[in-house]
Every structure is written in structure tokens, then in C-alpha cells.
């Protein structure tokens, strides 16, 4: 039962980027400065507009909040249905938080077609927010596909030397997955129609009620269609090869957004669709998915280790890190799921920060080859501090954010009734060792030693702008590491309720949810129209 109170609060941050996008279109392309600052202001406004959500969101309420339901395509019963729960709240805030930082990081590095570039960034933000708030499968699909366009251009126009190959690869990979998802969405709509007295619908809340009734042999196909689409996006091993190319070619801001937010659409989808809609199929596929996660964690780390390009190294590290998220998801424990959700945020912050750091180096040297560097600490001491923090967060050092996520996902998968096999966790934990290997080794070669390369003798330390792009990230990296309760408490009820309902479906009983949702009087439910 969704809660419709203050629904407008969600629409404001959702549409502000679109408004920004449209405004940019009306600015003369010669007005570079105006374009930059209008974009920045719109992204900041979006962030501030999303803050009330954080403060007004009620942890104790079960179901979606700030719910809106506006008719859109009546013949398909596709509606503009939006709302958020604890998980989407965190991801919405992550998105609105990361965007101003990525926009700021583009001011110096983007040298051509400013108007198109900044317009694309705002369109991208609109799409990403849309994905996280959609409660209608058709709407979700539209936002999901909308993102492909700006991202394709970001890589294809402002990217590096092999940008076209990378852009096409990114586009095709994702498209293959999403076509299957579209089929699944249409099939589910039809299923609603085939029921006695039913009609075609894309209302997520209705489909969620109907989904358990779908025959298991068909559920499996639907599950796989959704899962493939999401696993490509994550990307889960072995669907990951688009990611290193996309990252290496994308401009810094593109990488930050890609790692920071875009990949989370995949893991978000896994939870929202695969877990919420098809618990029984999940029980069949949890183990294979867990194996792929484990392989991805170790494989990603080992391949990251042998990279000579820093950005590619960080890209492969994402494959490894996202493996933890998927492992946490398929563990179907509150700890694992909470770990997965917080790890989505963590990865956005720490890998985003790593990409910003790589960008800082690239800006100065126009290369990312590790062997080109050495002893950089001497000329860039402030940068060294920031780079160290980003690295340690990624390594999963306790006290910083990465530890909370990794610990919880590993903990969850170890104790999981669903996976029922501690070896997933044990194998994955070795990824923690490898993470130290590839990151520290890279750091050693780039930052330590003597500054021998004459080209590096005169590198300047962080500019004021670069410094202030990184500081907000550091604050949250430490905050989540020291006092994760602020964030965990937002999605606790959601995670426990979801685990409870899945366990009840699969095992018949469940100890969850242990915390009770606040009772809401019936009139409020009626207003929501369900």
C-alpha cells in the first residue's frame, strides 16, 4: 500500500534535470560559461530538492512513499506511477549527490561541444532518477532505454580514441538485455489481461500481487529475461566486457556516473524485479548467480591486477566490487540485502572518487599508463591524501564505507539459508586480499618511489575545484564507515520485509520482519487508489 503524502516532493527533483536540459537547449552555444553554470545550478537544485525526501521519508512505513499515479497510456493501463522506498531513497540521493560533482569535474576537461555535453548530462540524470522512482514497468522501460542515448553520445563524442567501438559495444550489449526485458514486461501485462476480468497493465504494484500466480515454468523465463538484462548492466561476469572499454573511453564524468550510478540500475533491478516478483525462481537461480558473483569477484580482481592502464584497473575492480553486491542480493538475508544496498552507495562514492583521481592525473599528463608515473606524492601531496582515502575505501578498510558493505554481504551470504553454502562467502572473502594487491600495487607504482619522469616534475597539486569535488565524497565515505546507521536504518524495514516475504513463499516461514511497520489508517490507503 503506497503512501501518497507529499508526492510532489518526489516529482520536483525528478523533473528539475529535464527542465535544466530544456533550458540548456535555449542557451546560445557560444555562451560556454552560462551553459556550464546553468547545468551546475540545475544539478545542485536537484540535489537540494531531493533533500526533503531524505528528511520526510518515514523509516517505519511499509510500502512506497511519495506515490503518484497519473494516467499515461490508458489503453495499456500504463501510468506515470512513481514512488520510493528505503532502497530507492538511497539511490535517488546518491544520484543527485554524484551529479553536481561530475558536472564540476567536466568544467576543465571537456573542450568541445559544451552545449550538447551538458545537455546530455542533465538528460542522463533525468533518466537515472526515473529508473529509481518508476513503479510502472512501461515507465521503467522508457527511462531505462532513455539512458542509453546520452550515455552513448557521452562515450561516442567526448570519449578517447576507440570511443566509437566502446560506445557501440555499450549500446548493443545493453540493448540485447533490455529487449528481453521488454518481452517480459509485455508478457506480464498480457498475463494480467488473461486473468478473469483482468486487463492489460504495467502497474508494478498490481503485477507484484499477480506475479506469484504465474506458473513456475513461465516465471523462470520471465526471471531469466529480467535477470539477463540486469546482469549485463551490473555487469556480472561473464557479461562484463563492455565495461572496461566504456570506462576507458568515457570522459571522467562519464566514468564517475557510469560507476557511481548507472551500474546500480542493474543491481537495483535485480532486487526490484527478480527478488520482489519471482521468489520461487530466485530460489532456483540463487546458487548459479552466486557462483557468477564469486567468479566475478575473484576474476575481476585478478584481471585488474595485470592492467597497465589505471582506469582499466579501476574498471575491472568494479566488476569485482559489484560481485559483492550481487552476492548480497541473492543471499536473501537482511544483512546481505542491506549490505548490497549500502554497497551500491559505497561503490558509487569510492569508485567514483577513484575515477575522479584518475581524471586528475589524466588532465595533467593525458595518459593513464601506470609506467608513466612514479613518485607523484612528492609533487602532489594533497592529491596523495585523497587518492589514499579513495583507495582504502575501495580496499574495504574498516572505519571507511567499503568495509560495511563487504562485511554485510559476506556475512549475509555466509549465514544464508537460501544459498546454504558458506563457501560462496569464503571464496569471495579472498577478493578482499586481491583488492589490496591490485590497488596497493598500482598506488605504489604511481605515487611512491622517486619522481623520475621529467614530464612529472612540474605537475601541480589539486586545484581548488578538484579539491572540493573530492571533499564531499570523503565526508560520506567516513560517515558510512563510522556511523552507517544513518543509512542502514532507511532501508532496514524494506530489507526485512522483502526477506520475510521471500522466505515465506519459499520456506513457508520466516523470522522476518522483526521490526514492525507503523500501522496506517485505512482512509490513507483508500486515497492511494488500491
Amino acid at each position, binding site marked *: 500500500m503506497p503512501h501518497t503524502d507529499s508526492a510532489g516532493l518526489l516529482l520536483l527533483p525528478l523533473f528539475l534535470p529535464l527542465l535544466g536540459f530544456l533550458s540548456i537547449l535555449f542557451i546560445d552555444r557560444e555562451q560556454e560559461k552560462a551553459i556550464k553554470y546553468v547545468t551546475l545550478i540545475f544539478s545542485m537544485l536537484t540535489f537540494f530538492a531531493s533533500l526533503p525526501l531524505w528528511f520526510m521519508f518515514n523509516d517505519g512505513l511499509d510500502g512506497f512513499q511519495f506515490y503518484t499515479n497519473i494516467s499515461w497510456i490508458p489503453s495499456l493501463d500504463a501510468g506515470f506511477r512513481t514512488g520510493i522506498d528505503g532502497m530507492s531513497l538511497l539511490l535517488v540521493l546518491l544520484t543527485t549527490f554524484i551529479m553536481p560533482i561530475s558536472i564540476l569535474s567536466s568544467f576543465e576537461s571537456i573542450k568541445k561541444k559544451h552545449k550538447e555535453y551538458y545537455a546530455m548530462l542533465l538528460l542522463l540524470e533525468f533518466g537515472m532518477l526515473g529508473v529509481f522512482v518508476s513503479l510502472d514497468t512501461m515507465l521503467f522501460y522508457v527511462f531505462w532505454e532513455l539512458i542509453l542515448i546520452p550515455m552513448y553520445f557521452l562515450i561516442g563524442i567526448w570519449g578517447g580514441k576507440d570511443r566509437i567501438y566502446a560506445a557501440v559495444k555499450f549500446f548493443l550489449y545493453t540493448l540485447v538485455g533490455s529487449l528481453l526485458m521488454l518481452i517480459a514486461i509485455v508478457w506480464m501485462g498480457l498475463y494480467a489481461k488473461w486473468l478473469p476480468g483482468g486487463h492489460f497493465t504495467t502497474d508494478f504494484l498490481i503485477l507484484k500481487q499477480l506475479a506469484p500466480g504465474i506458473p513456475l515454468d513461465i516465471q523462470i523465463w520471465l526471471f531469466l529475461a529480467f535477470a539477463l538484462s540486469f546482469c549485463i548492466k551490473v555487469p556480472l561476469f561473464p557479461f562484463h566486457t563492455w565495461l572496461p572499454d566504456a570506462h576507458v573511453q568515457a570522459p571522467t564524468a562519464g566514468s564517475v556516473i557510469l560507476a557511481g550510478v548507472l551500474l546500480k540500475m542493474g543491481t537495483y533491478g535485480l532486487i526490484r524485479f527478480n527478488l520482489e516478483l519471482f521468489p520461487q525462481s530466485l530460489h532456483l537461480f540463487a546458487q548459479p548467480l552466486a557462483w557468477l558473483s564469486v567468479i566475478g569477484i575473484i576474476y575481476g580482481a*585478478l584481471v585488474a591486477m*595485470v592492467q597497465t592502464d589505471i582506469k582499466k584497473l579501476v574498471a575491472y575492480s568494479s566488476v569485482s566490487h559489484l560481485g559483492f553486491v550481487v552476492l548480497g542480493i541473492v543471499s536473501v538475508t537482511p*544483512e546481505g540485502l542491506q549490505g548490497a544496498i549500502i554497497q551500491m552507495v559505497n561503490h558509487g562514492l569510492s569508485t567514483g572518487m577513484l575515477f575522479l583521481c584518475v581524471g586528475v592525473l589524466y588532465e595533467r599528463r593525458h595518459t593513464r599508463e601506470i609506467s608513466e608515473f612514479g613518485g607523484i606524492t612528492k609533487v602532489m601531496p594533497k592529491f596523495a591524501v585523497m587518492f589514499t582515502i579513495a583507495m582504502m575505501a575501495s580496499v574495504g578498510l574498516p572505519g571507511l564505507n567499503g568495509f560495511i558493505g563487504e562485511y554485510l554481504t559476506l556475512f549475509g551470504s555466509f*549465514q544464508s539459508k537460501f544459498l546454504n553454502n558458506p563457501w560462496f*562467502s569464503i571464496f569471495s572473502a579472498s577478493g578482499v*586480499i586481491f583488492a589490496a594487491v591490485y590497488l596497493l600495487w598500482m598506488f605504489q607504482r604511481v605515487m*611512491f*618511489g622517486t619522481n623520475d619522469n621529467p614530464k612529472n616534475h612540474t605537475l601541480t597539486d589539486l586545484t581548488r575545484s578538484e579539491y572540493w569535488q573530492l571533499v564531499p565524497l570523503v565526508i560520506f565515505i567516513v560517515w558510512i564507515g563510522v556511523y*552507517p546507521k544513518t543509512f*542502514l536504518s532507511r532501508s532496514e524495514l524494506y530489507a526485512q520485509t522483502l526477506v520475510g516475504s521471500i522466505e515465506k513463499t519459499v520456506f513457508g516461514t520466516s523470522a522476518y520482519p522483526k521490526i514492525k511497520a507503523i500501522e496506517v489508517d485505512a482512509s490513507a490507503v483508500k486515497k492511494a487508489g488500491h
Partner: protein
Amino acid sequence: MAELIYLVPLLPLIGFFIIGFFGKKLHNEKLIGGIASAAVGGAFLVAVGIFMQLLGEAPEARTHIIRLFPWIHTGALSIDIAYQVDQLSILYTLIITGIGTLIHIYSIGYMHGDKSFPRFFAYLNLFVFMMLNLVLANNFVLTFLGWEGVGLCSYLLIGFWYDRTFEGSHIVWTGDAAKKAFIVNRIGDFGVLIAMFLIFWRFGSLDYATVNTMAATQGVDAGLITAITLLLFLGCTGKSAQIPLGVWLPDAMAGPTPVSALIHAATMVTAGIFLIARNSTLFALSHTTMAVITGVGITTALIAATVGIVQNDIKKVLAYSTVSQLGFMFIALGVGAYTAAVFHVMTHAFFKALLFLGSGSVIHGMHEEQDIQKMGGLKKYMPQTYITFLLGTIAIAGIFPFAGFFSKDEILWYAFLNGSPILWGAGVLAALFTAFYMFRLLYLTFHGEERFDHHHVHPHESPATMTIPLWILAILSVFGGFLGIPKALSFGADINLLEHWLHPIFHDAHEILAKSHGEHAHSLELEWGLMAGSLGIAVIGILFATSLYKKSSSKPDELAAKNKGLYSLLWNKYWVDEIYHAVIVRPTYTMSLEALWKIFDIKVIDGIVNGSARSIATWAESIRKIQSGIAQNYALLMMIGIVGIIAWMVLG
């Protein structure tokens, strides 16, 4: 007073932030060093106050749990930032903050003029904060935070002089040594991580008190408890540099010498002993683990001691000595002599910190020279360093009544009593080597002819900020042993203060062990005999070193030439680093590069992706030709289509 325990870690943390943020702007070494020292010194004073309070309480009532705030609360997990003040943690706290303060003060002199002076003290304060969390935690996860946190500080401080080179196997820069330390420790941490999951799986909690009480009262399945304790022990072998993960410690000497004293001798490396002492009940429940600990301890003690004999880097000798002494502590833990282990942690902290700081004073006075073959005759140039170093050397050699004698002898006694005569013999052998290499070090450094270049090196005594800490540690090294006087030497009076103090902590573990092993009969005559034996052997070691090294001679070289194979084995540290590199590091790297990335990622996966894209393109290219724009062809195709459909409808 105990509720003020949060101040103890908080003060160094504040120091870290002040120096970290404003250190560069202060432009004043004395002020920076003063703030850092005051932060740790203040923590020491608070700890002393709390210790006084505990003294006034009944022994069973000395445990205080102070909860600060919730940390990881989700699902079934509820982990708090909470401290456990008790006899064990306060003792460790006193050692950490007490010796920490001395080393901070010493560092003001030692690091004088270093361009990164503030950074050094910021790291040092951060280390103390992390170390205190490690020992004060009331649960495994918070200890793990400290555990990895000290690893971070160790990493940062080993690589402190990041642009300097350092000699080691596959090591070029100090940063390589730092990285090695962190990664090797991570392997151990992996064990701790899995152990925590198993513990929660069995006990449903990660609080020390809950877990150990449950284990004592309910008992645990033998296989499970062995797995848990062995995994925890894996972590200990990392942090406390035991076989098989001990390889990082000698290379950790790349860091500034005060770091070696504080982190890599007195405190951090004893974290492994702490973890086992903290969970003595769990460990006592597994015979297998206890045996493994004993085995690893004695093997490490012997191997490290033998390697120490031939090293020429003053700090590396001390590093191998540390590894060897830590081995002694593990022997104690393995035979259930928990108090003896903690006792040796304490005395070792005194004399090893002293020896490292002394070596730092030497290095300082010798303009960064560390090779003892290029020293000699220094005692007339640096008399205070010499005397204090001598006192430390006697203490570590285990000569009565210096501190090392009491703690080492207690370990050997229990090795005999609860272990076996062979274990005792091996321990005594390690003690013999210890006495030998320490006096070799002393003689080569301070006695004999001056082998340094008088034109370039002008040895001088260090300033008072450095010598005063030396003297304080020297006094502790001389008298510190009196805290644990055994019955055999007290004429029957029961004045082993440390044993009484720690008794409630190890009570459960001792009961479990007594139940399974039975009490061993104490015989005073036997204890005296063994004591005399080990003392005599230590003296033999000293005399042997004296004959070889006190006066410069060619005897050592001749000895080495005669036993070429053995010498080469020791000189190359049993080739452990080389073996690890050839068996683990190289193959993993090659496999990842050649098989995983170049073949699987690029050829297989991308091959399939690009291949299918290409085949679709080829296919599209061929059917594109159908759209030729020639109307006749379209008509023909339509005809074929119609015929086809009719045929299907008729036949199907």
C-alpha cells in the same frame, strides 16, 4: 572513572586531526611533537586513573563494558562501538600509551628536520588510536577495525620515506615493503573474517564476553572450534609475523626507527597474542589448535633466531629477534601459559622498544648508516646509548634479574611442564641463539675497532629527547620482571603480581585445560634446575659471542667459510621470500595476465560478442542485396511468398 575510557582513544584521535589538518601551518616541530606526545601522554594518564580504580575493586568486578554508540545494526547483527575495560585490556592500554608516549617524545629528536615531520606524528597518533581500539574493543568487529587500522598505519609508516630505496627480496622501494606488509596481513585478516562468520553462526553474537562464556558453559563441536581458532590464529600469524606469514616484518624495517620500535616491536605485532589471550576460552577448547600454535611458535622462534645470527643490518637483526621473541609468546599460549605470554609481551615491549630506540640513536649518530660491519667502537662516542643498549641486551638474553629472565623463564618452565622436555630444549636452544646474536650485535656496534670512514662519519651522542626515553625504558627493562616473580624464587611467598592480576581473565581457560590435561605436579627442585640450565646456556651464548666478536678478528669469516652451505641458507633467510614469489606470486600474475585477461576476456568473451556482431553484420549485408530496387525481383519474391503460404495452408 572507567566510563572515561573513551578519552583514551579519543585523545590520540584528536591529536591526529589537529596535526593532520593544521600540522603544516604550525611550522613548529616542538609544538607538533608536543601536541602528539601530549595526546598520547594524556591517554596514558587517564589509563592510569582507570587502572587505579580497577585496583580498588574486587578481582571479579573489574570488567566494565562501556557502550558508546551503535555501529552495524541490521538484521540479526547488532555491533556497537563499545569498550571492554578489564585486567587484560587495561594492561595492554598502559603498555601502548606508556611506551607510546616515550616513543613520541623520542621521535621529536629523531625526526628533527624531516620535511614531513607533521605527517609522521599524525600517522603515529592515528596508530595509537587504532591500537587502542584493537585492545579495548568488546567485540570481534571493533577489534578487527583496530586490527586493520594498525595495518593501515603500519603501511603508511613503513612507506613514510616513499622516495627511498630499501633492500629486500623483490623489493626496491620502501613502498614495496609497505605494500608487502599490508597484503600479507590481509591474508591473515581473511582468516579472522571467516572466523567471525563462523563464530556468529554458532554463538549468534560477536561480543567477546558472550562468546567465551557460551563456549565455556555449553562446549562446542570439536571440528568447529578448531576451525574457528585456527582461522583466528591465521590472523595472528599475519599480525604477529609467525610462520607462514612472518615474511613482512623484516622488510617493515624500511620505516623510520621509532616506528619499528612502537609498531613493529612493542605493540602492533603483539596483537596476535592479545587476540588469543582475549579468547583464551575458545582456544583452550581445541587441542589441535593449541598444538599448532606451539609448533608454529617454536619453529618460528628457532628459524628467526638462526637468521638473526648472520644479519648485518642493525634493524634487521632486531626484527628477526622480534619474530623469534613473538614465537616464544606463542609457545606460551600453546601450552596454556597465558599469563606468561602476556608477561613476555610486556617485558619484550620494554627491552625491544629500548633496543630499537637505541639502534635509532646509533643510526642517527652515524648519519643513517645501518650496517654493523661499518660501525664498531661506538661506545666512547655515544656512552648513554651504549649503556642503555647493553642493559636491553642483557635483558633480552635472559640474565637474572633482568626483565627478560623472568618472562622467558616462565615460558620455558611451562613449556616443560605442560609441553615436553623436547619443547623446553628447543626453547632453550632459541634462547642460546638469542643471547649469541644480541651480543654479536652489541660487540660489532659498540666494541672493537672503528670500521667507519672517519672523514664522512662523525658519531655523536643523541639529544636528551632521545636519551631520556632510553633511560626510562632501560630502568623498566631491568626491573620490569619483578611484576612476575615465580614461586620458585620468592621463597614460597605468593608475590607473582601479574598472575594474580590476570587470574580472572584466564580462569575459564585454565579450568578447561586442567580438566582435559590434569594438573601437573610442581617440583621446586626441577624448576630451579631448569632455570639454572637455561641461564647457563644463555651465558654460554654470550661467552661464545664475546670470543668471536668482542675484538675484531677473522674468526667469524673463517667460521662462515667453513660452513658455506649453512651460512648461505641463513644469509638468504631460508629462501622463503624467493619460494613464495616463485610458487605463489609469479604464477598468479602470469595466469591472470595470459590466461584470464588476454585469452578469456579478450579472445573468448569479446570474441563471442564481436563475432556475433560481425556475423549479424555479414548476414545483414547479404540480405541487403534483396532490396535491390528492381521491381521485378520484388514481384518474384512476392510470388515465392504467396506460393509458399498457399503450400503451407494446403499441406499443413
